[in-house]
Every structure is written in C-alpha cells, then in structure tokens.
C-alpha cells in the first residue's frame, strides 16, 4: 500500500504529541498515529498528506510490581517489554508473531493477538488504563487503576480503534505471571482434516490450551528447510499445542491432548523434552512468514476468523480458491480460536499476478463470512478491508459504529480515512417514524 505523508513527527513526550495534533489541526490536516509500521491492514498508511505521528522514540517503561502492572510509552517494543519483565517472573501475554518489532501502541490500537492469546485473551484483556491525546489535542485518561472506573468502558472502546479516536501516549498493562510448568506438543497428521477435527475435539473435551497452532504441509516444508525446527516434512498438517499452568494440570492436559490427537489418527505426538527443544519448535512457527521468501519474493497474509468447527470446511475452500487462481497458498494459523491466516505467495514481477492475488483473497474473505466468520481476528480493517465492512455489518450497524467514532473525534481529525467505509453515516436514522423503521428492519439497508 502506498502512502502520502505530509509531515512526519517523532515526539518524545505526551506534550509533544499534543503539540503535533494541535498544529495539524490549525493547518486543517488530519493526524495518523504510527508505531512500528508492522500493521498489515494499512491502518498507519497516510492518505491525503496528513501529519504522521510516529511513536518509536517514546520508549519509557515503569514497572509497578505492587499493582502487577507496567506503564509504558507507546513506542516500546512488545518483546523488549517481555524480556525486561522476565527476570521478575512476569511477561506481557499478547505475543504477536511480529513481537520482535511491533509496538505496544500498535498492539493496543489493533487489539493484537498472538498464539498465546487463546488462553490468556487478546490485548484488550491486559490493558488497564490509557492516556490519550484526543483529536483536538486535549489530554485524557481512559480506564483507571481501579477495576470498575465510573462510566462507559472507554478504555475498551479505544483498544482496537486503529488510531481513529486518538493517540495513546501512556498505557498501563497487566503483568502476567510466568507459568510454573509448560509442555509443548507437536502432533503430526497425514490428513489436515484429522488435525482440524482434533482442534475441535480438544476444546470440546474442556481443555483450553495456552496455544493451538496449525501448519499445513507446504509451510511445514518451507520452515523446516529454513530453520530445522524438527518438523516432519511428510505430514499433511502439524499441530503445535502448548499447555501451561501448575504441574498437575499440565500433566493432565498433556495426556489429554496426546490422547485426543492419537484418537484423530495422529502418526506421532512428541512432547518437547526440554526448553531448548521447546524454543526450537516455536522458532519454526514464529519465523514462518520470513521463511516463505525462499519460495517467492512476495506474500499477502490474510486474517479471518471462522467458528472452530468450520475450520476444515473453510480450509478446503481456501485451497480450492487459490488453485483456481493459480496462486500458491500456505496455511499457518491460530487454529485454537479459528483464526485463519492463509498466506498467498507470489512474485509481483509476474504480469497480472496481483489481480489474481486480490481476487483470491476476496473470495477467501467471502468464504469465511459465509461460514459464519468475521473479517478480521487480529490485523484490523484499516484500508484493506474497508470495502468488505458491508458484508458483515448492515447500514444500521455501521451507523452505530460511526456515531461512536464521531463522538470521540467530532471534527474527523484522527486517521479519518480508515476502518469505516464512506457512506457509513446516515443522519436520517434519527428521524424515523414507525413505518420507515419497520421497513428498515425488514430490508437491513437504507433504501
């Protein structure tokens, strides 16, 4: 995605962010917050020469061990934070695959997830309070250190708002204690169908592992050649399952996951013998996107969620769609919560390939929605999925979201080009008589 920045600022403090926003306002420019720029939906891509406020230099960290939380400035890198907390026995739970480079501000703005969010919850569950510079440059605090701050959960509204309601300048996130015991299992299946069925069966058996990741044969082979993680390259699909907590539960759940996988025709189930093997198994998963460069120079990573019981069904369609468009697809994804990440691999120098990639992607999104899924599980809407918002939401739903956004940012100063498609606002709704209301209920759209 190509951007068009007006001015790019690198503030160090909250006051400097306020100045940037105020000056932008005086010149009639929008502001686009930007963290590390790893976002995949184009949320931080500037349109129409706005002032881009880049937070990468805002790096302060204050650990408050008594309250089991940490205040960070938004530019702090996700993995750096966890590394800093580790000696004290804590970590920051959301662990996006991009955690070596993405910022906490970006995590909050996108409500980011990661493999371990299956059991621990996505970013929203870990954010306590956010200091925010609003679109007019005013400063406020959303949420608070007490558990039930008075009023609406504006903290919750901010998380996942993709930079469209203000700029986070300080964030209080919860510390998660490191689990006393961990077991990582690698299960190897001939049939991807069996692997997918095992995922549902594990959940149905009443176990919520810390993570359940699935990788198909193509990606497994590529990754294995790249890092030598010890993955079986003749498997149709592998599952990487992690259980953690107290030792008794870890032992019981390890046995149960093993049993369920074998009952679903896993050829083998291997439990990592030590930390070194465990780290290697994870290294394979976390470097998967980098590894595909060995196949083709470019990739387009999709992100949809489907009900867990529909995984297999949608996965089949993903292969069929990619084949039909002559595109290589690889799948490595958060199977435990139904979060698909089809990776379309291509060489942009091939004439016409981009159109085929986009068409295939659009069909994949459509197939996910038809299976009862949603547009995005963690990457957000940004510019990328704006055109599809009307597939998931009615005019009335979108209008409600627009009201919320506009209440925060009445002058449309914050990242105005993102998330909601043009035409999401219908002022007429406010003056409905009963017959018009009935008609709208029946049609679902403003006619």
């Amino acid at each position, binding site marked *: 995605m190509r951007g068009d920045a007006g001015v790019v600022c690198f503030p160090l403090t909250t006051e400097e962010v306020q100045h940037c926003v105020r000056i932008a306002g005086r010149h009639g420019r929008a502001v686009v917050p930007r963290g590390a720029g790893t976002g995949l939906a184009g949320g931080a891509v500037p349109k129409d020469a706005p002032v881009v406020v880049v937070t990468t230099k805002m790096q302060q960290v204050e650990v408050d061990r008594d*309250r089991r939380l940490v205040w960070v400035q938004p530019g702090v890198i996700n993995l750096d934070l966890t590394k800093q907390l580790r000696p004290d026995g804590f970590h920051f739970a959301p662990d996006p695959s991009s955690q070596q480079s993405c910022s906490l501000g970006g995590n909050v703005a996108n409500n980011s997830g990661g493999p371990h969010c299956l059991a621990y919850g996505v970013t929203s569950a870990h954010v306590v309070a956010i200091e925010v510079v609003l679109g007019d440059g005013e400063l406020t605090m959303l949420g608070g250190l*007490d558990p*039930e701050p008075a009023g609406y959960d504006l*903290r919750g509204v901010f998380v996942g708002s993709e930079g469209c309601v203000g700029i986070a300048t300080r964030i209080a996130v919860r510390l998660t204690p490191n689990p006393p015991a961990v077991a990582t299992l690698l299960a190897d299946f001939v049939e991807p169908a069996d692997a997918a069925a095992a995922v549902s069966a594990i959940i149905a058996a009443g176990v919520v592992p810390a993570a359940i990741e699935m990788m198909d044969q193509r990606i497994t082979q590529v990754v294995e050649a790249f890092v030598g993680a010890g993955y079986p390259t003749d498997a149709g699909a592998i599952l990487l399952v992690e259980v953690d907590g107290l030792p008794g539960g870890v032992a019981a759940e390890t046995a149960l996951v093993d049993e369920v996988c074998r009952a679903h025709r896993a050829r083998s189930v291997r439990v990592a013998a030590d930390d070194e093997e465990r780290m290697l198994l994870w290294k394979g998963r976390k470097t998967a996107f980098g590894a595909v460069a060995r196949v083709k120079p470019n990739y387009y990573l999709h992100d949809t969620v489907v009900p867990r*019981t529909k995984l297999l069904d949608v996965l089949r369609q993903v292969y069929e769609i990619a084949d039909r468009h002559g595109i290589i697809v690889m799948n490595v994804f958060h199977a435990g919560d139904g979060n698909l990440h089809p990776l379309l691999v291509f060489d942009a120098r091939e004439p016409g390939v981009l159109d085929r990639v986009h068409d295939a992607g659009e069909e994949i999104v459509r197939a996910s929605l038809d299976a009862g899924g949603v547009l995005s599980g963690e990457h*957000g809407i940004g510019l990328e999925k704006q055109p599809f918002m009307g597939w998931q939401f009615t005019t009335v739903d979108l209008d409600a979201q627009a009201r919320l956004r506009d209440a925060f940012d009445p002058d449309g100063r914050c990242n105005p080009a993102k998330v909601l498609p043009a035409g999401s606002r219908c002022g007429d709704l406010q003056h409905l008589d009963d017959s018009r209301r009935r008609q709208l209920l029946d049609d679902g759209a403003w006619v």
Partner: protein
Amino acid sequence: MTATDQSRAGAAQLGRVVRDPILLAFADEVGAAEAGPVAVEGGRTQWEVGAPDVPTAGPGDVRLVRAPSGVVAFEPAEMTVLVRVGTTVAELDAELRPSGQQVALEGFEPGATVGGVLSVGRSGITRLGHGPVRDTLLQARYVSAEGLLVTAGGPTVKNVTGFDLCRLLVGSLGTIGLLGDVLLRTRPRPQHSGWWCGEADPFALQDQLYRPTSLLWDGTRVWLRLDGYHADVADQAAVAERHGLAACEGPPVLPAGRCSVDPGALRRLDAARREAGGFVAEIGVGIVHGRWDGPRPTPPDHQVRALHRRIRRAFDPTGRLNPGRDPLAASQPITAGQEASR
C-alpha cells in the same frame, strides 16, 4: 473507497440482517423514538445502580419492558452460548452445567438476568481468576433508540472487525441500547474448587500463589478460593496452610455497599483502618464491599465527562432509553457516616 472497491463489495452490501422473530418483536415493543421513554426491567437485583432517583416501582411516564429470554444455542465445541438476555444467570448456568462448562458470571443474586448483569457491568468475586464480566461478551444484538436492531461485535471467539460496541454496552446501564441477545464465551468448569480462610497477610500470600480464583480480606482475615485440578489445588492449599489458612465453607457474607478502588491503596491501608474493618476487599482486583474511608480513585476528568455526554447524545438523542440512569454515578462508596444513618 474507490469506485472499483465499491462495485466489488457492492454485491452483498447487506450485512447480517437479523431475522429472529423474537428480537424483531422486542424491537417493535420498544418502537421508534415517537413511542417515548422506555426502561428495561430484569431481576431488579441491581436496580439502584447509577440511578439514585429512579423510584423502585418504575419511573412515572416511563414504559417498562422486559428483554426476551431463553437459551438459543449452546455450542460446547465452540465454547460459546447464544442467550436472550432476559434469561437468569442461574438458568443459563443450569443449562451449561451438564457439559462441564460455565460462563464467567458468578456470584450474582438469584433472579439476576444476563442482561442486567452485563448492563450494570459489575463483576463477581471471582474476577481475580476469571476476569471481568465484560470479557465474556462476544456479540450483542440490541434495540437502538430508533427501535432498530444493531449487531455489535461478531459471532466468533476472536474478532477485531470495526469499533468495539460490545465494550461500550457493558456497564452502560441500558443507555446505549436495549440488549436482546448476546453471544457469550464459555469456559471449562474446574475439576475441583474450594475455599480456605484464616488470619493472614493477603499480599504475602498472593505473591506465593499462582493465579488464585479469589482472595478476600477484611483487614484481618483472608478467604481464598482455589480452582483447578486436584493435585494443583492441593499444592496451592498447602501454601495457604503454611500462611495459617484452613479449609472453610465459603466466602464471608459481603456487607452492603460496593466501590472500586486502586488495589494499591489496599496494600497501603493504615493499621487503624485495617483494624476498624467493616469491609471485605477483593485483593488484586480492588473492589471493596462495605465501608470504605480510604483513598478513592480520582473522578473522571472533564474530557471523559464530555465524551459521555457526546456518546449518550449520539446513541439516544431524545434520552428515551433508561432515563434517569447515569453510568458516571454508578460507583458510590458507603462511608462511615452514611453507614451509621442506614
């Protein structure tokens, strides 16, 4: 959006229109703005929250409605349940129990409805281990001030599509919209669960336990709830016993009054206040039941107040939804003086 984007996506520009006749009937009952003020009645177990002036019999010219009830679909392999919000929390729990699952809505009075609990947004005493009420909500279909059905959130366990109206609804006291049905996340029931109590330092204890479910303190005594596999509960109980706790029946009766405080303030509570008691505090969370004279959180700043006014006006321009209720007034502690006058 470019013209090509428009035409691409235009083919199915309808979203997910709600066809459920029960929700449609609820929307009709609420009606368009011209139908005037409406308030929703659940189990009346938290009726006074945020509404000091709403008479208990139902406000004068305000029409009282009830949300539809019933469990619509429980999917154990998805760990989700679709429930109409007039259903009581107890009924929902009974429905889920045979499958070994539950929703993290625990410790509410009998009669409390799912809709009431979500609209008030207060969590039970297991928040430390199970997380807040708000994190259970995945999707809500509600009736707007215009009498239309709106879908917030989505039908999957993970979702970041669009602005998060679900977060806005929880704790909004029905001032954003009237909940019709909700999709909630379920969790496995623990294999074993028990309470331990005794005189102990709750903070020293907390530091030695791994993710306890509940830790309560009245200034002298501690009540601890442990959930999990037998062996783990036994190990953690051994830690608690070293701190002087012994197995007990359950939590104490919670005194009337409830406020939300910085959990750090509990740790720094002075000896006089500790000994005076009159409260039961949730350690690691910061909810105090009963009397609280300690430091209170700073009130919301004027920006937050302005945001509240704008949001409420945006969603309910005529102020017809649950008039008289103010989410900003919901957290009011009982102080020593008030307690004496009760």
